[in-house]
């Protein structure tokens, strides 16, 4: 399927416009959907009223402040389920679930407390029926109270509340990436050497938005490529998505994980969106810490008003994880600092949305160092070091317009200094070698034995981002619309010194006399990648036959430019219609569905790959006398750049049913989805050939003390077949599955609530390219072999069924919460599907790189006997993990002054999980336990007093 044709894309856009027109027509003449009212009172546990508390309806702009009696009244609230958020400085925020009937009035009583553990309405699990702000697609919403209780050092730990995400112990031990709605197969290997694994492709396509600005890993070049044999030692993640270790959990206020079809506001994704809001504005000063046998973490946050128009918040988080305490000094250390500033110009009281002008500034600084020093007694010479030093400055200017409309401009510049060093002793047999960096034939030398290979990768990844967006509310044709339209500009590049090593001591010893050694490469000569976007999104509420139909329709156009700026030609364009529907026959039941397309930009390293070197041996004369030796090699250089490389395009669709009576009542969600990413970027093996000169030698008598000489002109030559690894849109990731979430209301007698998440996901990961097999290397060097077989690509299927039970015991009167989490892996299977029998070949390649397909019916013919070989390098055996489960425990207890003490035990019973057979290994991480403490400092040091 090709997405390269802009006219074709626009024809699909026409179809969408027709759909939009249909909606408008459908809306015409409809009654304005009925709304309702929510009234209530906010008090302390002793009944004392809390004035000045801000009450908002999540997902809307509805907001009100309590009066001196703690009362509030919200008008024109759309019928249906809502979450009320009640906030007051000095108190833990409260979230109350309500279901509002059309034309009705709901009265709520909200109790605030200094400590969220003392509040009856806290929810320490994800909201099963939550919505991201402004989004109708399926989402998981994780609020601060759940984050507080979650054992998390980074965003990764918080995302464990998302259905289908396995539990992991807290810490910074390894690269953390999140592949939404796919099975990160038991086999991390890619289908083709150098290409991404299914998990990496899915993580690459998962968009993370931090404080309204996307994060990007597109310009990360911290990899060694397919030939680099030290790549596995690198402690940083150069492929896949953003390393979640860079986002400390302690600074996060709220996380929205949009697993379904996102609105048109979001782009550069294929799997889903994770929207992260950090803590900002007025935050009581607090400090916290965590210690366990591997990780120690401390954090502090302080927010205050500066005058009447400004708010300033600063936070600091320092964490360190020892990978194997007592055994090695390997450690990962993170320092994250954040400054958030808000300036309101104009009317200074009331919420920021009501200010004529609001300017938000965010300055983020994060350093992540992974240091694995040498252990001379165990692995002499082996050591690695990685450091990401990121700095991001973002500005968001919001201008309030008439009628509740607004315009927002966002600008962001981020810079990440990425440094990797890895070294290891390498051992090679004697071989001819050249260090040429240009094409041509030259006298080489012989190398052999052990050497210390040292590799440095210095990358300076830059990301410029801008967004201009208008948010309009209108009542058109009898229907309330919320219309969002805007545009985005992105520019990404890497200005680092690049991949550096001593050519004679390369990070690679494998050499077959043709496939050459990699050479150093500068990153700062790689051109920037520019993309631009236009989008429009409309959310409207209809009443159909007495039922409420909520609709979100959007259209997004992503353009990948061929030049380095946004005014250059368009290299590839993808039009992305997106539709979400939600029909509510009754307020407590919702039928939901969504369909949409998304697009993911190729990484800078895929658009501008490293040149590939071939070092062909012409003369190999290794005389016993070193003075008589002669090596002659010809270096060929091939550029694998694919000028046709474009976006990966995903098609997302889902349908399901939700039932719920509020966040504390019974809630059930059942959903089926199918996400299919086509054109994921992998490597396509492109056959070709080189001409190898064969020299005859003169003066080759031994004992002369001189090397022989070449007889010229040449009289002989032969061809050597090669494969060029060219980045191409060859990968398909097709995931389908079911997600079910059940939240059972509290059994008051036992103070217990149960939350169950069950997911079943089946993923197919397919390479559309051809497979030339591991034996191609032999074919290259076997001059007498005229041809070699090739096969169709491999299809890797994976399946996982995961059920997570969370049993929550909560005593608000004691400020005590215990959560027992049982993760049950009911099924996990991985299998490669590929023809492996002798007649499974699809054709053959000649020594000049010509591809000749062989019809299936003729493959058994005697003239193809030499091709009828079993496929090498492919194992089709089904790999499965036996069903198993493990238990984790989290305990939180309130402390005086709003503090909290927590204890956690990950994998409490230390269950292993296992893969049977001689290669048996642990599946579940080891038992790990630790303590957490958080203490607000405002009351302790009198910095901030509660102001009821």
């Amino acid at each position, binding site marked *: 399927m090709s997405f390269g044709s802009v006219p074709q894309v626009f024809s699909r856009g026409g179809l969408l416009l027709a759909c939009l027109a249909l909606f408008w027509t459908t809306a015409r003449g409809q009654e304005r959907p009925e709304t309702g009212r929510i009234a209530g009172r906010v008090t302390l546990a002793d009944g004392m009223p809390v004035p000045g508390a801000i009450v908002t309806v999540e997902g809307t702009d509805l907001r009100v402040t309590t009066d001196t009696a703690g009362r509030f009244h919200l008008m024109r609230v759309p019928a249906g389920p809502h979450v009320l958020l009640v906030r007051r400085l000095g108190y833990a925020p409260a979230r109350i679930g309500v279901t509002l009937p059309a034309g009705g009035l709901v009265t709520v009583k909200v109790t605030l407390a200094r400590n969220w553990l003392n509040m009856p309405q806290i929810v320490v699990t994800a909201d099963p029926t939550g919505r991201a702000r402004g989004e109708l697609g399926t989402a998981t919403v994780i609020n601060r109270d759940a984050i507080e209780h979650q054992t998390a050092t980074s965003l990764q730990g918080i995302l464990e509340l998302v259905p289908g995400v396995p539990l992991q112990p807290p810490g910074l031990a390894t690269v953390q990436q999140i592949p939404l709605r796919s099975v990160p197969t038991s086999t991390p290997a890619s289908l083709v050497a150098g290409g991404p694994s299914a998990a990496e492709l899915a993580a690459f396509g998962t968009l993370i938005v931090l404080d309204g600005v996307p994060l990007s890993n597109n310009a990360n070049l911290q990899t060694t490529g397919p030939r680099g044999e030290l790549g596995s030692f690198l402690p940083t993640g150069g492929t896949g998505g953003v390393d979640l270790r860079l986002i400390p959990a302690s600074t996060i206020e709220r996380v929205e994980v949009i697993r379904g079809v996102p609105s048109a506001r979001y782009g550069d994704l294929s799997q889903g969106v994770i929207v992260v809001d950090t803590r900002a504005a007025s935050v009581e000063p607090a400090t916290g810490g965590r210690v366990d046998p591997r990780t120690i973490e401390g954090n502090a946050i302080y927010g205050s008003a500066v005058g009447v128009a400004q708010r300033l918040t600063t936070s600091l988080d320092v964490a360190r994880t020892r990978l194997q305490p007592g055994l090695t000094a390997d450690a990962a250390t993170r320092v994250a600092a954040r400054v958030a500033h808000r300036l309101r110009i104009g009317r200074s009281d009331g919420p920021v949305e009501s200010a004529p002008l609001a300017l938000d500034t965010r300055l983020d600084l994060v350093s992540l160092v992974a240091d694995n020093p040498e252990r001379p007694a165990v692995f002499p010479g082996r050591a690695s070091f990685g450091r990401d030093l990121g700095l991001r400055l973002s500005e968001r200017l919001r201008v309030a317009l008439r009628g509740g409309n607004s315009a927002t401009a966002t600008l962001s510049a981020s810079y990440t200094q990425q440094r990797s060093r890895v070294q290891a002793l390498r051992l090679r047999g004697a071989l001819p070698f050249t260090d040429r960096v240009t094409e041509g034939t030259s006298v080489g030398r012989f190398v052999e034995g052990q050497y210390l290979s040292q590799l440095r990768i210095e990358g300076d990844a830059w990301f410029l981002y801008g967004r201009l967006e208008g948010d309009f509310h209108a009542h058109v044709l009898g229907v309330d619309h919320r219309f969002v339209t805007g545009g985005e500009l992105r520019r990404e590049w890497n200005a680092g010194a690049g991949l550096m090593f001593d050519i004679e001591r390369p990070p690679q010893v494998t050499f077959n006399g043709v496939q050459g050694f990699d050479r150093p490469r500068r990153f700062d000569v790689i051109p920037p990648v520019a993309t631009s976007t236009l989008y429009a999104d409309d959310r409207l509420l209809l009443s159909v036959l007495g039922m409420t139909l909520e609709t979100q329709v959007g259209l997004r156009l992503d353009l990948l430019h061929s030049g380095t700026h946004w005014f250059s030609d368009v290299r590839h364009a993808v039009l992305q219609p997106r539709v979400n529907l939600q029909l509510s026959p009754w307020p407590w039941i919702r039928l939901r569905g969504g369909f949409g397309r998304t697009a993911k930009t190729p990484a800078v390293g895929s658009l501008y790959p490293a040149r590939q070197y071939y070092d062909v041996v012409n003369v190999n004369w290794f*005389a*016993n006398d070193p003075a008589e030796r002669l090596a002659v090699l010809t270096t060929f250089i091939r550029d694998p750049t694919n000028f046709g490389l474009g976006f990966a395009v995903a098609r997302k669709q889902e349908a399901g049913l939700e039932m719920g009576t509020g966040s504390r009542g019974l809630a059930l969600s059942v959903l089926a989805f199918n996400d299919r990413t086509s054109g994921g970027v992998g490597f396509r093996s492109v056959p070709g050939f080189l001409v190898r000169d064969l020299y005859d030698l003169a003066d080759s008598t031994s004992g002369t003390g001189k090397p022989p000489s070449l007889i010229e002109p040449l009289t002989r030559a032969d061809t050597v077949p090669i494969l060029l690894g060219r980045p191409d849109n060859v990968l398909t990731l097709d995931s389908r599955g079911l997600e079910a979430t059940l939240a059972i209301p509290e059994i008051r007698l036992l103070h217990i609530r149960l939350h169950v998440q069950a997911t079943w996901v089946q993923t197919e990961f397919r390479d559309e390219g051809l497979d030339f097999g591991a034996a191609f290397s032999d074919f290259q060097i076997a001059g007498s072999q005229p041809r070699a077989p090739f096969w169709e690509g491999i299809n890797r299927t994976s399946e996982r069924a995961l059920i997570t039970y969370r049993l929550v015991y909560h005593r608000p009167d004691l400020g005590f919460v215990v959560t027992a989490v049982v993760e049950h892996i009911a099924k996990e299977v991985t299998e490669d599907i590929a023809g492996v029998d002798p007649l499974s070949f699809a054709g053959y390649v000649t020594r000049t790189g010509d591809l000749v397909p062989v019809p299936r019916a003729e493959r058994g013919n005697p003239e193809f006997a030499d091709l009828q070989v079993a496929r090498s390098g492919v194992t089709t055996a089904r790999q499965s993990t036996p069903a198993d489960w493990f238990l984790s425990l989290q305990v939180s207890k309130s402390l005086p002054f709003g503090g909290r003490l927590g204890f956690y035990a990950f994998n409490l019973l230390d269950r292993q999980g296992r893969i049977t057979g001689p290669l048996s290994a642990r599946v579940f991480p080891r038992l790990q336990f630790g303590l957490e403490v958080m203490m607000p400092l405002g009351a302790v040091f009198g910095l901030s007093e509660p102001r009821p």
Partner: protein
Amino acid sequence: MCRAGRLSHVIDATCRLRHKASVMLLVSALLTACEHEITLLKPLPTAASPGDGDSAAVDSTAGTLQRATLTIRTHLAPGDAALAATLGLPDGVLPEAAVTVSRVGTAASTVQGTTDSAGATEFSGLLVGRYDVSVLRLLSAAERALLDSSDADVTGFAGGGSGSVSAPSTEFTITTSAGRRGSLVISELFPAMPRIGDQGYNFATYIELYNNTDTTIYLDGKLIGMGPFWFRDFGQTQKGFFPCSLTVQWQDDPDGLWAPMLIRLPGNGTSYPLGPGLAAVVASDAIDHSVVDRRLPNLTTAAFESVGSADVDNPSVPNARTIVLEFQTLGRGMMFFGVGGGIHFVADAVDLNTVPWMRPGSYNNRIPRIPRAKILDVFASSMTPALEATEGMQTPLCDRFINEVFDRQRAVLFDPGEIASIQRRTIGLFDGRVLLQRTKSSAADFISSRLISPGVVR
């Protein structure tokens, strides 16, 4: 243990947890978590006989070790009846033969005995389990003097086998056959792939061939091969891999040796003569490997080397050509020994167009069978007992390692991590030349030696 101090209010609050259940839960969780590393180990029994200390032999129900008595009876092959009569040996049995019994997969587990006049011997107090048995009786000079001219090349009798020993007693009958000196024999192998740093160096391997006859042998076209290597039951442990029940047809084939690796020596028939009592080395790389590690041999004087497109070519050493190779060597020409032992052989020149070929299920290349009549000499070996105990037991050996017509009992000498060579035993000097022992029982004929001596037979 609630102390006063700057954080006393925090500690006090914790100590004053009012809800007993909460405290119990927290304490029990802490205790459970803290106890997880404590493991009590039972003492092992004192080693007293071969295999002691192997937990597999412990009878957990009785609490004692099961021990057995093994009786070895020898039986002369019927074809050697006339020879035995000439030597005056009792009917059908082999007296005064050295018997070696080794428990499979257990280090330091060998015991020896000598057969009595009835050709039998007994070992008591053995742990139950699987045992290898080899029997060897070399002829004395006086006995050799009794032989007819047709049997003048007989140097002794040997045999071997493997089987399970169970309590209270088990009896093995070992058929022994006459061993003849042969012609071109494998005199030494260097399969070492020592770890240098954290990587293996496998370029210094070689096979040494020796002329054990009184006449010149021409090496031209001779084949050096690796025999069938399906001697472990991967079907038991890895789904989709071959079980012994399938591979026995190739492994135990009496008509020839299936060869996944085959190297042909160069020459046109008379180019490379090898005189009586002389040795020729076929090297992976005919270079001085001591440059890399001084413990490795200098092979610059090898007779032949195996070259690929990516390794070096010594112009003064003729190149042997690899004609069958199931394994990828990434351009390195090399003598492939595997990592767990196997069967290696030398054979006369064969027209490969006239022999059977087959392709086992998942193999890339077709594999020829070298006819039995062309096989000159065979070396069969599995891993050393120590290595077998640590590396091999997860994938057990098949019952059949090789057919008796090629080798009667494999040696247990293979350890590629050790810088050591495997050498054929010598019988002594004969007409001023070293006579090598060849009883067609690798267990009896080969020893491991730290003395690496390419090209030299002492």
